């Protein structure tokens, strides 16, 4: 390997056969290049889709109500069902040990916010402190609603980042008084949501405050829960499905709804969606891997082909070298050394170029379903080594055969 004389011989051969070297290198470099870009974008798609799914907690169960579609126990269809604090309190007591986060929601669909000369219409929701986690929100400034606010029915509010930009420009909103439908609330926090701007145009106030100030009495429009995760995803999913159906039958019984009425109570179990999401991610990953492996196979076949042709082309030269006293082993090492050297240089060139492209283009790419394409460096490196090894193996067979050819046969080759 570190035989200087042989290196000189190889480098000389390579530099005197530029086209051949270039073509071998090109097929290896482009193979690696394509693979890395593919895997990068596979990762990018996965990142993009994950971000879309991170809007809410991934195991959230939402309960909402609607209008009955069937008559039951003497009641007419067309009744609007409304849940109350009592329903919520009963449920959180009954499932106390299973629940992780819980909140009921009272919605004022459009609240007009006024601050100085600025105003805007936003969705205002009365919630419990846990709601932050159900919505997967992070605080940018200040704090979220807490239990003290809830107890005291304080007039405080938490606003989305977008609301802050709309109403406050560059001012610090914390501590400012903002009017909701003419009533003063103090801003205590600003949040951000991975779901993006659409999720950040909302305003949260304590549930108790909202029920009192906006005339909700004890009505709630929406319930949100997450369950404590079990050891396996499968068990968590089973538990969550069972929980959903228990809530449904409890609410139907309590509000006198026909058991087969599908429109009065709606339950949205994100976990089932999450399962589909993970399946989808799995599919995408598998797809890119299959394509990637096919690319590698194509690359290996390409390298093997070129090695076969090179050896064929050099058969006569090999004959001459043998006539001059070259031993079979020196012929094999000459060919392998050259092929490994060329594939290694080309492989790393392809690797570096593609990684550089991903580095430059990746962060600037702003599309809904592709986010920050990147590739695992070890995976890419392994691929390069596989190609080099394959090139060496592919070169070994013809090299070995060439080294065994009788010099007289090789010399007759024209």
């Amino acid at each position, binding site marked *: 390997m570190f035989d200087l004389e042989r290196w*000189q011989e190889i480098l000389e*051969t390579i530099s005197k056969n530029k086209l051949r070297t270039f073509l071998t290198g090109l097929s290896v470099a482009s193979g690696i290049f394509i693979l890395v870009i593919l895997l990068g974008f596979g990762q990018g798609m996965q990142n993009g889709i994950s971000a879309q799914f991170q809007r809410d907690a991934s195991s959230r169960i939402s309960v909402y109500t609607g209008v009955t579609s069937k008559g039951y126990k003497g009641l007419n269809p067309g009744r609007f069902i409304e849940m109350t604090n009592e329903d919520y309190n009963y449920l959180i007591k009954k499932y106390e040990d299973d629940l992780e986060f819980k909140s009921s929601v009272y919605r004022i669909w459009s609240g007009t916010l006024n601050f100085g000369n600025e105003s805007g219409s936003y969705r205002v929701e009365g919630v419990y402190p846990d709601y932050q986690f159900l919505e997967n929100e992070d605080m940018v400034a200040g704090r979220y609603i807490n239990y003290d606010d809830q107890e005291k029915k304080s007039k405080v509010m938490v606003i989305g980042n977008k609301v802050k930009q709309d109403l406050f420009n560059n001012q610090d909103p914390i501590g400012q008084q903002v009017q909701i439908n003419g009533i003063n609330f103090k801003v205590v926090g600003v949040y951000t949501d991975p779901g993006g701007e659409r999720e950040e145009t909302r305003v949260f106030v304590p549930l108790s405050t909202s029920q009192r100030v906006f005339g909700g009495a004890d009505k709630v429009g929406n319930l949100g829960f997450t369950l404590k995760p079990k050891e396996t995803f499968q068990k968590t999913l089973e538990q969550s499905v069972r929980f959903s159906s228990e809530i449904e039958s409890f609410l139907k019984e309590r509000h006198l709804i026909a058991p087969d009425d599908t429109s009065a109570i709606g339950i949205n179990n994100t976990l089932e969606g999450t399962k589909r999401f993970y399946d989808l991610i799995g599919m995408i990953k598998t797809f890119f891997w299959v394509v990637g492996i096919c690319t590698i196979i194509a690359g290996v076949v390409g390298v093997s082909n070129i090695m076969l042709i090179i050896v064929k082309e050099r058969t*006569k030269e090999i004959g001459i070298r*043998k*006539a*001059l*006293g070259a031993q079979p082993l*020196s012929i094999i090492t000459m060919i392998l050394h050259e092929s490994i050297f060329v594939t290694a240089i080309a492989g790393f060139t392809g690797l570096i170029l593609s990684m550089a492209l991903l580095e430059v283009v990746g962060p600037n790419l702003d599309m809904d379903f592709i986010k920050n394409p990147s590739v695992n460096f070890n995976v890419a490196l392994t691929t390069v080594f596989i190609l080099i090894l394959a090139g060496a193996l592919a070169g070994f067979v013809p090299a070995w055969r060439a080294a065994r050819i*009788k*010099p007289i046969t090789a010399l007759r080759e024209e």
Partner: protein
Amino acid sequence: MITIKDLHKSYTMGTNSLHVLKGINFSVQEGELVSIMGSSGSGKSTLLNILGMLDEADEGSYTLDGVPIKNLNEKIAAQYRNKFLGFIFQSFNLINYKSALDNVGMPLYYQGMKRKERTEKAMAYLEKVGLANWAHHMPNELSGGQKQRVAIARALASDPKVLLADEPTGALDTKTSYEVMDLIQGINDEGKTILIVTHEDDIAHMTKRIVNLKDGLIIDDTAVDQVRALSHV
């Protein structure tokens, strides 16, 4: 220097077996310049290839400089070729992407000689064949005669016991042929043993001994008065 006894060789072509050499007995002393003649198919090239360890005999014995050449594996054959023999081919067989100098240096590379020493020695042999000024030219920039001179320099480079030339003038015109023969005669005058396969009478008469082959047997083996190539140039 060379002794062969009862040498047989046959080739199988499809279902037919072609008996090319049918029992050759023949020896060459050190310092001889021998030509092997015969029409095509007489087995002269096959004999040379066996002498050159490029091919193997089926039967018979072959001794080169006291070493029996038998059942060689490729590794030892390569060593022996490098140590004992220098080849000159009709089609020159230079490596086309290497300069004249590097071509001459090839046998030395396979002897494991360092580059600097190799280059010096190769240069000396190029000077000997009168091509010192062409050392860094590629084979395709040289004329036929020049290529053959490079090939001769290469054959001499490893200082072999015997030079084997297969139709060395076959691809050259008469004038160039005689120049090459003059060079070969000069090398023989210095004591090198040389075997030449040829079918040209005038070339054969520039050697010291003519061996005539016909249908795989030696029919005639006579010493001749050497014609100096220089007198024709």
